[in-house]
């Protein structure tokens, strides 16, 4: 396998997850349930977009074809996006948004922690920086899950419902293919299998503190990492890319 190509693909996957989840969260800007949460969610979105910009810029440099962060974000078609299906799920009610966030942020925490030890100095620095931000994201969603789960009868029910809905999407975060294997061998990529148990244990701790039930294991979402997205993705990109596609030379 060509290392340069693999590294480009690897960076795109990391960046796309942050971009699509960041976009979903940005949809709540000015629509948060309370002002403090509006601000919190928008801040998390901003962190994710910042991380996405950094890694896509690097992806463009690795690729060496002169594409910058904007080219990669705004001018790729849907099937070239590598984000996991979890990130494109709609916000639903606040319990669903927080369940999605927790499943992602806890993963992100372990992922960045490992990536900060990468042999690729750029990835390592990027991960060390992003890790600090992710700790706040993880705490934020975990605390809400506990507060809502261990809250009123209605909040408990809705939190459980949100968790059940998002649960089957988490497995895709741990998928591996030839790109991962090649880069793991070189000490560049993270072997996510190493922290799968710790991840599951962390989720269990949060869920039990929240007095919620661990959802039943059923089907497993898959496909996002190879560009097979759900119908939601087209709608997301239609909004996200509309300005850049209508005015290709627009500057802001």
């Amino acid at each position, binding site marked *: 396998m060509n290392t340069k190509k693999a590294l480009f693909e690897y960076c795109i996957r990391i960046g796309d997850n942050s971009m699509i989840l960041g976009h979903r969260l940005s949809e709540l800007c000015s629509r948060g349930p309370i002002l*403090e949460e509006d601000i919190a969610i928008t*801040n998390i979105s*901003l*962190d994710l977009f*910042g991380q996405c910009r*950094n890694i896509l810029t690097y992806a463009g440099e690795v690729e060496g074809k002169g594409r910058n962060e904007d080219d990669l974000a705004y001018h790729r078609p849907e099937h070239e996006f590598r984000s996991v299906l979890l990130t494109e799920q709609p916000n639903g009610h606040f319990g669903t948004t927080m369940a999605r966030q927790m499943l992602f942020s806890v993963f992100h925490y372990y992922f960045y922690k490992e990536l900060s030890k990468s042999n690729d100095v750029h990835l390592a*620095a990027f991960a060390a*920086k992003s890790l600090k931000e992710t700790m706040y994201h993880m705490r934020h969603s975990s605390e809400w899950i506990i507060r809502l789960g261990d809250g009123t009868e209605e909040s408990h029910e809705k939190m459980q419902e949100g968790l059940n809905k998002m649960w089957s999407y988490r497995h895709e975060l741990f998928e591996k293919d030839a790109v991962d294997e090649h880069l793991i061998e070189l000490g560049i990529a993270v072997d996510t299998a190493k922290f799968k148990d710790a991840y599951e244990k962390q989720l269990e701790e*949060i869920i039990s503190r929240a007095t919620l039930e661990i959802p039943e294991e059923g089907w497993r979402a898959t496909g996002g990492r190879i560009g097979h997205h759900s119908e939601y993705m087209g709608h997301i990109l239609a909004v996200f890319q509309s300005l850049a596609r209508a005015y290709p030379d627009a500057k802001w």
Partner: protein
Amino acid sequence: MNSKMQQVWDTLNTIPDPEIPVITVVELGVVRAVDFVEDFLQITITPTYSGCPAMKQFEDDIVSELNKVGFSDVRIKTNFDPAWTTDWMSDEAREKLRVYGIAPPERGSEDKGVLFLSGPKKVACPQCRSEDTKLISQFGSTACKALYSCNACKETFDYFKCI
């Protein structure tokens, strides 16, 4: 330090943070290095938060202020390593924040509890200095701040969080 280098640092020391104008980009710890490279001047900066919207403003301000004092070719280099930390902020800068109404970051108190905050953290109210305060939200008006309220004087205030 030669006089040209001194002049660059002196100029940088006058550039305020666009969102917290009482401290400068140097005091904030965003400026990491100044280098004369061949025929241009390179300023190395590091972002506070990955998505901090003020970063572009920092860059523009640095370039335009240095242009004004005669450095015509100023280039910005962004560096992520080592990652920015509030520990770089001087005592003087912390005091300026407090006077301005923002509780400064507690030195070396990066939250150790990974998932759950390890016990209540004492953040003194910048108005009345009472330590009887409570966290309202981990996220405040900008990426670098959390929102607190004071039980003693009833004011809400920003806390510059530790990272």
